[in-house]
């Protein structure tokens, strides 16, 4: 049953590939939708009955590789964590599938697109259900590949191709760390199967491991290396550059891959490896700092961007930062909670943005929109719900998950926690500011679109709206519905031993008994953000110009995304090419060839010329040589 929900997307993929152009598109669409809905229903059923089955069990499909003591199976992990992720992935994916049928209506490669979505879903499910690190790595790379294919789906666009390449290569840098992490795990534990690793964690608590000549605490090293992988996949500061560019792909892709599922794989991996992370204070602090930095960076950049999808992409980046912060303070369940709610409301926001773009004839610049609220009212409502959930207005989903992260952060006892908490609160303000800024520019004010576009504005077809209604339901209620699964006493029975759980009774009580000022602080920041965005973008446009002028330096700094791309281009990409060229021309061509084959042949040739020059043909030259030779031989003969 469980395996079926994992393999249905793969069947979808092959179905699309083989029947593309052989049978009518509409038939393929119906079959695909039906299959995906079936997969979702199965995963919902499995989720609610997971405790009836024997949790913690593995479904072994076959042997993959056995080399010495390095043994891997093809197998699926069947426990609360994987079941939950399968549910989220399948549901969001089904919605995106159906939405895409409408969104990609006029695209000649629509069926291929659906096929790629299916393949992506399959790899994502492999990632979340894997019972060993290698199979997880297959899913990890697989989602990277499908992300590459889908970002570059419109491959006649050069920007899209560049973005796709960038996404793959930057992710590879993360994978580099991940692979080293896997090697270290195998070296320390002698196995790559999760169940066996977790049994052995305690015995390796004090192991030290020599890495690059230094002695490291083994579990810290592993955590940090794995985190590097997560930074790539989850677009954390330093390796985030691919995510905004990835928005060149079709919007459903951005919703499914670059918001709801793939980018959260890093969070998932760290939650999965929580027993190891928990043993290393250094790694936790690092994760917390990088997470906080990312959320601050992305939120601040989002304020100045004008591309509707890029704003949401930076917002994703920033929310992922929150999840890592939660992991940093050991709140693994809460990180998962935010992951789930985020999957729904961010997918809603992206698909809503897609609906806006669809209405505006592929215009993405929010400065060229405006006054859309009465022209596309349903989309407006949906975007409003998405935004409320994102900023965390009371009773919307992020209100439960994000505020919980902040509260736990407040109670956390690392020395840096309080600073991270302050950053978290500032980011709430930023989030509110850029979200409402987006809404104001897109839906309010005066219309700035040209007439041709304006005449064509229309509400999206029903096939695009209905999936969004489901998503908006989850965006509102998933916080309320799932709260108890992730936090508090009841969560203990749900998770069992699958993730590390430190929530003994006291933290959950402490959270409840926080002073009201702390409880209400995020709400205050949201209101402040709303007011600020109203002031700057709507009512006091002069203030906007004044601020831009006065804070010119800061504004360009943010507008240019902290100059990270330029930094990489100057310090990494250009030198790499320069060195490569230098190696090729100077060392290969000049040095090796001239000393090696060319040198040898020249030497032989010169020797030949020299020898042939001895043969002058004059008798007296030969006579002289004979005399000299004779003299030498006779002298040697006499003296020895």
């Amino acid at each position, binding site marked *: 049953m469980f395996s079926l929900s994992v393999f249905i997307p793969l069947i979808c993929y092959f179905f699309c590939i083989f029947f593309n152009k052989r049978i009518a598109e509409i038939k393929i669409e119906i079959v695909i939708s039906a299959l995906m809905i079936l997969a979702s229903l199965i995963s919902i059923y499995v989720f609610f009955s997971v405790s009836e089955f024997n949790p913690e069990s593995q479904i072994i499909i076959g042997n993959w590789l056995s080399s010495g003591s390095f043994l891997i199976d093809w197998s699926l992990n069947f426990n609360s964590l994987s079941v939950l992720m399968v549910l989220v992935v399948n549901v969001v994916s089904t919605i995106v599938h159906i939405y895409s049928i409408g969104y990609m209506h006029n695209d000649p490669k629509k069926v291929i697109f659906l096929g790629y979505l299916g393949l992506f879903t399959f790899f994502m499910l492999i990632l979340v259900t894997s019972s060993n690190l290698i199979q997880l790595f297959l899913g990890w790379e697989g989602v990277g590949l499908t992300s590459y294919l889908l970002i570059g789906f419109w491959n006649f666009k050069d920007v899209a191709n560049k973005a796709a390449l960038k996404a793959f290569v930057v992710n590879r840098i993360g994978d580099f760390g991940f692979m080293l992490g896997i090697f270290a795990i195998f070296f320390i534990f002698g196995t790559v199967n999760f169940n066996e690793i977790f049994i052995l964690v305690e015995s390796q608590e004090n192991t030290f491991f020599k890495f690059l000549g230094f002695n490291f605490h083994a579990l810290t090293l592993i955590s940090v290396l794995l985190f590097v992988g997560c930074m790539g996949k989850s677009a954390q500061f330093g390796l985030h550059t691919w995510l905004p560019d990835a928005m060149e792909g079709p919007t459903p892709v951005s919703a499914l891959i670059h918001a709801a599922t793939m980018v959260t794989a890093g969070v998932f991996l760290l939650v999965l490896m929580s027993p190891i992370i928990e043993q290393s204070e250094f790694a936790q602090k690092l994760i917390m700092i990088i997470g906080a930095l990312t959320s601050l960076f992305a939120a601040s950049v989002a304020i100045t961007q004008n591309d509707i999808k890029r704003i949401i992409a930076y917002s994703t980046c920033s929310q992922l930062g929150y999840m890592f912060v939660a992991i940093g303070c050991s709140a693994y369940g809460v990180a998962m909670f935010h992951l789930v709610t985020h999957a729904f409301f961010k997918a809603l926001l992206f698909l809503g943005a897609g609906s806006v773009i669809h209405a505006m004839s592929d215009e993405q610049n929010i400065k060229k929109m405006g006054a859309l609220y009465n022209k596309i009212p349903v989309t407006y409502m949906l975007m409003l719900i998405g935004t409320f959930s994102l900023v965390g207005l009371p009773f919307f989903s992020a209100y439960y998950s994000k505020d919980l992260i902040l509260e736990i952060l407040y109670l956390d006892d690392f020395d840096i926690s309080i600073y991270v908490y302050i950053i978290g609160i500032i980011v709430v303000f930023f989030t509110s500011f850029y979200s409402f800024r987006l809404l104001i520019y897109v839906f309010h004010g005066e219309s700035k679109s040209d007439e041709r576009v304006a005449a064509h504005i229309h509400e999206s077809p029903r096939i695009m709206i209905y999936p969004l209604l489901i998503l908006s339901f989850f965006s509102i209620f998933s916080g309320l519905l799932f709260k108890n699964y992730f936090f508090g006493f009841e969560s203990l029975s749900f998770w069992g031993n699958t993730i590390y759980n430190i929530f003994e009774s006291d933290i959950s009580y402490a959270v409840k008994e926080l002073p009201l000022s702390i409880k209400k602080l995020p709400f205050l920041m949201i209101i402040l953000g709303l007011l600020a965005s109203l002031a700057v973008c709507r009512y006091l446009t002069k203030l906007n110009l004044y601020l831009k002028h006065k804070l010119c330096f800061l504004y360009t700094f943010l507008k240019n995304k902290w100059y990270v791309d330029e930094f990489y281009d100057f310090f990494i990409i250009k030198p790499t090419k320069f060195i490569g060229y230098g190696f090729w021309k100077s060392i*290969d061509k000049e040095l090796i060839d001239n000393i090696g084959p060319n040198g040898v042949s020249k030497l032989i040739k010169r020797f030949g010329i020299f020898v042939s020059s001895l043969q002058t043909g004059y008798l007296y030259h030969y006579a002289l040589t004979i005399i000299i030779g004779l003299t030498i031989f006779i002298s040697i003969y006499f003296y020895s």
Partner: protein
Amino acid sequence: MLNIPILPLLIIVPIVGLIFVLLSVEEDENYIQAKKSALWTSVINFLISLYIPFNFDKDVPHFQFVNSFSWLNSDNLKFSLGIDGISLPFILLSTLLIPLCIYSTWNIKTKRCKSYLSAFLILETFLVGAFSAIDLFSFYIFFESILIPMYLIIGIWGGGRRVYSAYKFFLYTFLGSVLMLVAIIFLYQEFGTTDIPSILNSSLPFYIQIWLWLAFFSSFAVKIPMWPFHTWLPDAHVEAPTEGSVILAGILLKLGGYGFIRFNLSMLPDASIFFTPFVFGLSLIAIVYTSLVAIVQNDMKKLIAYSSVAHMGFVTLGIFSATIQGLHGAIVQMISHGLISAALFFCIGSIYNRYETKEIANFGGLNSIMPKLAIFFLIFSLGAIGFPGTSGFIGEFLTLLAVFSHNTFVALISALGIIFAAAYMLNLYKKVFLGKPNKFIQKVKLDLRLNEMIIYSLLVFFIILFGIQPNYIIDFSTSSLDRIISLYPISIL
């Protein structure tokens, strides 16, 4: 059944086929009759070679299917053939790639077609001979004979600078091999026999091992090739015809790796331990250096050629880590590279046949003209960058795993190779296949022909098969490798 002289048969069948090819009537300028005889011969040979894995005893570390013939009327100099788990995959790789090469010429007009086909058949004889020889002299003879058809393939059917390239190729490999001949003669003097199994059972003092190791190394390091002996490879590839490049990258390079395992590692363990840092150093340079060079290439074949050097860097790392994972990884990596680089060269050949250029800058948006080729090329590129699920991943992963336990620094630097590989392969893919189709590529509108489809599908099948079931390769070699590893200090893996 076991008495079928399977290895001599594998060696003789191509020669018989060669006679048919030469006798065939030139009925049209496409030489279809000659091509048919050559193809049937090589397919039959492949089918014969399939007999081996099904009748091979995996648990025996010794040589199997042994056939010995007396030679030069001497008891000590024999012409003997046999295989163990290490050579088995390579023999199958050779018998697989040769028919594919011949089939790929199907619709192409080649000058002196009969001689061209004969060159490949004779090459198959020598390759199978080299991989199955268990006598030093017969090994040396086969190993060197390969140079002749290969030299001719590059020198006669090559591109513009073919003579320079052919000569460079010959000079490099021959200079290396001469030293190996000296070593072989020395071994004969020392033991009075050139029989490899009996030499494997005896040991030599350390100072002699050092010299012998260097002699063998010089030959195989050129062949595989290791930095800085690699400069013949890009030139040879660029000038060689498509099928020549396929054989060169697909099988010839593997002779180097095979030689390292068979001679340096198995016969000279003390020297191998002594030289491990040296080999690791060169391999690291090879991986990083050639990857960087590959990034800036403007010729497709040159790019793949440089990437081959980087991939072979993983092989040498794996071999000299002297652990079971490392050696498994090296063997899988060699087979996988044999399939993937062959496939990539075939693809470039398909492009070259249509556009007569391999300059990357000329292309763009090719996927709109040749969508099928674009899909295949993407799959092969993924193999080359070690995507999990393809055989390339297994090779690189196992190798790096083994190296990590040896030296984390080496593992760290060599793992950089996987980042670079993604950069240069996908950049190549982007530049050639993606984007808007330009005018130049629109002049030909012809996607893959049937023979190309069949070749690529077969290669994809094997690349993915060995990616999800690498045990098909690994299982054969385990017992033979265990014997080698027992010569080395016990590592923890």
